[in-house]
């Protein structure tokens, strides 16, 4: 394709080129809104049908890790926004620094998610054979808060007495939990790949006040993934904490 510097032949100015790229990214994000919207819808319907099992499932999640990860992700959005600003005002070194900070924070988020998943494996909360919401309260592990666990046991026993299907409905919660957070994590991994590509470009000094569309549109994507988490966090972690 014909190209002069960073300007492709079918555009007249870099500004027009950037506007088109940004517009295209927004169109893509619309499809993403509806894609994640479908999952939120499935979650809402199942939660309203099986609120007891969903409440118990939600309370097994670690609120400190969840809230911590929310802070980490919002910080990464700030550094991403700062990377865009650095490119716009021509501070080439800062672009690299802020992009690397964004990638580092994104990696921390994924690491914490990994720790949380591991916990769910240990506690027999993976949907499928062996799933048992009674398992963890009766098999404490090192580092468990025993008082918290006793509360959980009481809650689980009470629920089982009323509804023997709790384990079946609980699997719905955890299927949705792993499905939604897994897809979110997949988006983070894609974002991390895009950031690596941007970092390579910023080391080469590619991004200037005239040409910074790639930083801008990857930024849009990154912020969108942040927004998905802003909704996932209260819905998955906080639905039944007041007892």
């Amino acid at each position, binding site marked *: 394709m014909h190209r002069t510097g960073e300007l492709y032949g079918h555009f007249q100015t870099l*500004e027009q080129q*950037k*506007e088109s790229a*940004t*517009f295209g990214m*927004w169109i893509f*994000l*619309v499809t993403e*809104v*509806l894609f994640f*919207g*479908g999952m*939120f*819808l499935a979650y*809402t*319907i*199942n939660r309203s*049908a*099986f609120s*007891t099992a969903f409440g118990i499932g939600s309370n097994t999640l670690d*609120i400190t890790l969840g*809230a911590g990860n929310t*802070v980490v992700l*919002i*910080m990464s*959005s*700030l550094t*991403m*926004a*700062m990377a865009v*600003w650095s490119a*716009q*005002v021509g501070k080439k070194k800062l672009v690299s620094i802020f992009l690397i900070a964004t990638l580092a924070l994104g990696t921390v988020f994924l690491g914490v998610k990994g720790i949380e998943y591991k916990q769910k494996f240990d506690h027999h909360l993976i949907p*499928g*054979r*062996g*799933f048992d919401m*009674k*398992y963890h309260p009766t098999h404490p592990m090192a580092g468990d808060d025993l008082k918290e666990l006793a509360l959980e046991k009481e809650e689980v026993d009470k629920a089982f007495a*009323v*509804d*023997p*299907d709790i384990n*079946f409905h609980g*699997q719905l919660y955890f299927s949705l939990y792993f499905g939604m957070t897994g897809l979110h994590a997949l988006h983070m991994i894609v974002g991390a790949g895009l950031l690596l590509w941007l970092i390579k470009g910023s080391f080469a000094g590619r991004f200037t006040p005239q040409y910074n569309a790639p930083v801008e549109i990857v*930024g*849009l994507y990154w*912020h*969108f993934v*942040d*927004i998905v988490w*802003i*909704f996932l*966090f*209260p*819905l998955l972690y*906080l*639905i039944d*904490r*007041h007892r």
Partner: protein
Amino acid sequence: MSEHIVSPKIYLLIFAALMLGTGLTVWAAFQNFGKFNIIIALGIATIKATLVVLYFMHARYSPKRTQLVIVCSVFWLAIMLALTLSDYDTRSHETQPGEGRLVQPAASHLFSA
């Protein structure tokens, strides 16, 4: 037409607001507001998302064309949510504890421990 550059000061202000919202939503989750708990949680999340869209994603300073796309995405999402939920809400299905299931678990004996 030159592009609008959002200053770091505004980014930091928005960041502070988002942190405040996160703290607030965690605090609110531990209070008993009855059925308002979910409304408060989703309300705070929506405000946070709006701040991200307007400032981090520059929607406030974007061309009208881009803003139209954003409004459309929310509109179509609202159609999907409203029509599906009203359908589920007005259909009768048994979900009494122990007897009713949205889906009959043909192989549930394989999954329950």
